[in-house]
């Protein structure tokens, strides 16, 4: 892999950029691999990357039915934070955040991780108490968050209206280390690094069946033929139920549309990320200048990647109420992704009823921020066959035992 740097750019500029090599190879699949990962979203690619980096397992294929990073990884609003309430969540999201902090250097690809600070507004007394609880919990978890008053909120977000007539802002949960990153770059950076380790990323190849023998996985059927494997990782987000069915088991997961939209670009007016859960909306400003806006899920199961209009409307009402100056901006583009929701809104990183077949899903509306941590934990699970401490609590069995990791406790919208 040729390294990226400002010098490389200067050198290439002299020959009109004709010397750049491919970021990732486009190989034909081999007959079999040690590990096959289904799904080249952020989580699948990160799993492959840490399999190679942490465990030296590089005879790996990542199989993607469309184009890599084209699922939720390429559709999300890129909020990164680790101020989760429950211990297992805080652990894995904070692991992810600390990996994000060095990811550009690690991958030699600028993922534009931007710790611009993140605010979760409290607009009812109930919410104030909830966020205070989070701060107390985070302090014990080693996650630095703080509670700030309305004046500090206004100072961090000059365009905010803290005296709204309906839900005045009473304060906010503030995580200074939170922020955003460039979603495509995360997928591309991991893909490039995986490819450089000799792994195969096979795009436009859909997994259509899972083969097993004596309760152990042996391979997958794909639109490019059968591909054998010793171990299988299913990392397909909104399509988890479908692929799990191929492997012969069911998941406690529902698929729903989650939407987002952007405004036309304007000059910088908001540096931090703001989430307003009482009114249901959140907003940040991208490096391009677009206001990036999202809200809650559509609330009914669906696979269309479109989503309905009424949700957008609700989200905008909330945000115009919070930021009155955006009213004259225009919506440039609206889209949706299919998110995989578990009953307790926490993910699964788990063994499955099928031997040597592992699942990573259920990240729902908030898994972009988790990508490096999730890949790290999943790689360990796949490599060792048993979960490490980061993944241990996220097994499917928790639903049988009632050992939920309920994050909806803390926030209605959890991105």
């Amino acid at each position, binding site marked *: 892999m040729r390294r*990226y740097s400002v010098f490389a750019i200067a050198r290439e500029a002299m020959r009109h950029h004709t010397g750049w090599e491919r970021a990732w190879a486009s190989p034909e699949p081999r007959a079999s691999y040690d590990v096959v990962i289904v799904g080249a979203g952020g989580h699948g690619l990160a799993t492959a990357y840490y399999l190679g980096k942490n465990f030296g397992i590089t005879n790996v294929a990542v199989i993607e039915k469309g184009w890599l990073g084209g699922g939720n990884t390429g559709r999300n609003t890129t909020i990164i934070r680790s101020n989760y309430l429950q211990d297992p969540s805080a652990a894995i999201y904070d692991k992810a955040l600390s990996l994000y902090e060095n990811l550009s250097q690690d991958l030699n690809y600028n993922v534009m991780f931007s710790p611009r600070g993140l605010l979760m507004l409290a607009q009812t007394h109930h919410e104030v108490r909830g966020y205070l609880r989070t701060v107390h919990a985070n302090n014990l978890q080693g996650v630095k968050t703080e509670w700030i008053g309305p004046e500090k909120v206004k100072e961090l977000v000059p365009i905010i209206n803290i005296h709204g007539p309906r839900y005045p802002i009473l304060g906010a949960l503030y995580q200074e280390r939170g922020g955003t990153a460039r979603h495509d770059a995360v997928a*591309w950076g991991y893909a490039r690094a995986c490819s450089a380790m000799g792994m195969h990323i096979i795009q436009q190849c859909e997994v259509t069946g899972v083969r097993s023998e004596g309760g152990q996985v042996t391979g997958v059927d794909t639109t490019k033929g059968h591909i054998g494997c010793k171990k299988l990782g299913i990392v397909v987000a909104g399509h988890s139920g479908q692929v799990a069915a191929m492997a012969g088991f069911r998941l406690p997961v529902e698929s729903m549309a989650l939407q987002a939209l952007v405004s036309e670009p304007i000059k910088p007016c908001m540096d931090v990320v703001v989430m307003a859960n009482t009114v249901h909306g959140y907003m940040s400003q991208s490096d391009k200048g677009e206001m990036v806006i999202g809200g809650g899920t559509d609330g009914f199961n669906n696979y269309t990647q479109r989503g309905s209009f009424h949700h957008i409307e609700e989200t905008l009402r909330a945000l115009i109420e919070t930021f009155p100056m955006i009213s004259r901006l225009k919506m440039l583009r609206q889209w949706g992704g299919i998110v995989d929701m578990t009953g307790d809104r926490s993910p699964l990183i788990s063994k499955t009823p099928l031997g040597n077949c592992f699942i990573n899903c259920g990240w729902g509306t908030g898994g972009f921020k988790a990508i490096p941590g999730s890949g790290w934990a999943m790689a360990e699970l796949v490599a060792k066959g048993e979960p490490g401490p980061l993944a241990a609590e996220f097994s499917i069995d928790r639903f049988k035992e009632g050992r939920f990791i309920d994050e909806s406790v803390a926030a209605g919208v959890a991105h």
Partner: protein
Amino acid sequence: MSTRLSCGGRLIDRRAPRDFSFNGKKMRGFLGDTLASALLANDQMLVGRSFKYHRPRGIVAAGPEEPNALVGLGVGSRFEPNQRVTTTELFQGLTATSQNHWPSLEYDVGVVNNYAARFLPGGFYYKTFIHPRFAWKHVFEPIIRRSAGLGKAPIDRDADRYEQAYDFADVLVIGGGVAGLQAALVAGRSGARVLVLEQTAHWGGRAPVDEAEIGGLTADEWIRNAVEALEGMQNVTLRLRTMGAGVYDHGYVLAEERIADHTPADGRPRKRLWRIRAAKVIAAQGAIERPLSFAGNDVPGVMLAGSVRDFVVNHAVAPGDRTVVVTNNDDAYRTAILLVEAGLSVPVVLDARAAADGELPRRARAMGIRVETGRGIASVKGGKRVTGVAVCAQAGQGAVLETIACDSVAMSGGWSPIVHLWSHCGGKLIWDEVNAHFRPDPDRPPTGQDGQGIVVTAGSASGALTTDAVLRDATNAAGGTDAPEAAVPQEAPVAAIWVMPQGAGPELRAKMWLDYQNDVKVSDVQLAAREGYTSVEHTKRYTTLGMATDQGKLSNINGLAVLSQALSIDIPQVGTTTFRPPYTPVTLGALAGEARDDIFQPLRRTPMHEWHEAHDVEWEPVGLWRRPYCYRRPGETSHQAVMREVSNTRTNVGLLDASTLGKIIVKGPDAGKFLDMLYTGMMSTLPVGKCRYGLMCNEQGFLSDDGVVARIDEETWLCHTTSGGADRIHAWMEDWLQCEWWDWQVFTANVTEQYAQVAVVGPNARKLLEKLGGMDVSKETLPFMQWQDGTLGGFRARVYRISFSGELSYEIAVPANEGRAFWDACVAVGAELGAMPYGTECLHVMRAEKGFIMIGDETDGTVIPQDLNLGWAISKKKADYLGKRGQERAFLASPDRWKLVGLETLDGSVLEDGAYAPAEGLNANGQRNTQGRVTSTYFSPTLGRGIAMGLVLRGPDRMGEVVEFTKLDGSLAKAKIVDQVFYDKEGAKQDV
């Protein structure tokens, strides 16, 4: 230079001049001008700067595909950034300012990026700014952020208002060109309910500009007749200035109407958002012309050939004196002919095709226009304005054959149907080899619930390019047969030529713009292909092609073509990116509609709302309700007010507006059986006239709501829910009744708003009611946990003896419309007793003193009734209830759960909200272990100390133990585990 011609201009009214300003410069145009035509008439070709390289940019197009000419419009509370001048109607006093430059449009420092362009190819930022680690956040990103973004951010609150409206149609026609009008005529005559939307202020679209002749009439005459005919049909509605923004599932269409954009501050709403249900959508949005890719195709003065015609015919504006026409098709010859007829000079038509002998080229030659075939533009000369073109052979590498002076260039790369609305909901496209464009595949339309297509296209939107074909297609689309005839010249096919010249080297390709606004060039797309970003979505994202505010309308197809060449695959194999709503950007304010400020969400008021408002209330939002948090007398803090309210209620009598409490009637032969499933306790055996506290759990076993249930008669129960929970619980009941137990005979009604409810609470509560007079409220007649109907103070009342405070307490429900009068009566008779109203915080303190749980405080979706020592409220006699099996799971049945206890700080202080109790050691992830947390914490005026409840590991077994709780300053507070009931443990006070 660009100027106003002395005659013509079918849309302008020369008797109605309009003054406006651009960057402070005073200018004048006419009614009927767009801001674009008015600027050009004032020789203002340079109007903006590009996004990345800050290159000087002029007007390229005449419609919504315009990528460059975006301005800041208006001032102060009516300032709007990124307004497209080609779609902005001119009005008196309009002020526009150009964007994205410093210090000025003419001299922009940001243009250094242009000179460094070589070092800033597509995606350069992914490859650099990596080291040192902190530099991205602190140095590079701030620079990038500041130089990106187009218009300025508005500062003020929007002065305008917006509305939303609904409409329904059998046939919704989107686009009011001749295709749309013809389709509407056919549909209208069939008697269908027809709605026609046109985004501009005029009917007819392009046909009059292209000098079409329809049924022996000029296009203008035919259009006038068609509109008149449509206006005469009762079943047809026509709407101008209304843009079809998006097609959603099931034929749901969103449209934005500009009502007062051109008449600001006239009192009308600025925009209206239409939500339309249509059985059939006819998308007749027309086609958009493509640029050609030659070096310098972005220099101000280079325009689309069709748009040049628009400006000349519609507004009598000539973009230049000497215009070179460059094309790969016959259509552009119309521009050459028109310009010469208008007395302007066309030094040459450069036609990239080997031959040009269609009717139009022949006519042009006959007029003496020089036509050069097999030729292209090697490069455009000029910086802020075109000064000439260097001509080359299309087949070569760009060797300059000749340089021709000119001040504008009219280019045409062919036309692409507008397929957005067709595609939003899944309509598929096919590649049309002959016309070199993607067009809707009629066999694969977006479908509705019955599997039938919900959208058809009509006219150029289907790929029909001559007026004749357009009218035939539109007639078919609407189910008709008789299309009017149109006289059309014979046109030779377009040649699929994208890059000019064919063999251009890297030097030239790096100056051929594809996405003008985002500065994406042919070389960038080729770089993306080289680096493996070969999926069209990867190319788009890597280069930002098509991600600008025109969303690729202008040149996405050109980009796809370049990509297909770079990958040596066919264009259809490359495919397109996804078309997403909206078609053109929609104002956020319009999407939000009227819901702003006070009416941002519905406000639910109890019948006593006005009284509270008039009596020093401090409000607290509870769902959509507003409840009094406390009543703050002059000079009091909220805390003091709450303390006073608690003391008065405990020692005397207090009044609470409890109207928000959820009230759901459950009735029917199976109602008892139903409630036994819903609640953990037994409700079917509750005798008529009695009340019982009940808990509801979800299937997982977690506590979701609580409240008192009253048996009204044999078949009727009234279930009280929490204030915030009423709608949710009602929906939950219906969910079970409609989806699972649909054969049970049960009816539910949410009657929360039908009753006003007043809690009269405190040792003097009975005295107060006796003063009101009426029914017997003595302990004997109306004991604790019973209810009775009667009259009080002349009001029909249902009186419940229930208590959430531990005091003698009556909750009195009266019909909602008598609520205020009843409250007034209570206040009046209470005055002599010193009764005071109290708010939610006082209620909370009192319930905490009594150790009563609060849903949302003691519960958070992870807590089961057993955790809260509420096992007594779970019936052991029942076979089942919702949540029972859930609660039997290992983790929930474990003795090692966190359970509810009271907490008393050793020093009497108040524990912090949300505090945790750390335990010894760290867990496997290095986090501090915990053994409990505070769920409710208050200062109790009754006890004169802090009291709290909390969930603590095996708490009830650890009475008397001292546990530490976190404080935000990092220190710890010590608290003793005690019984959760702090006040009147025996319950003597409520049962008197």
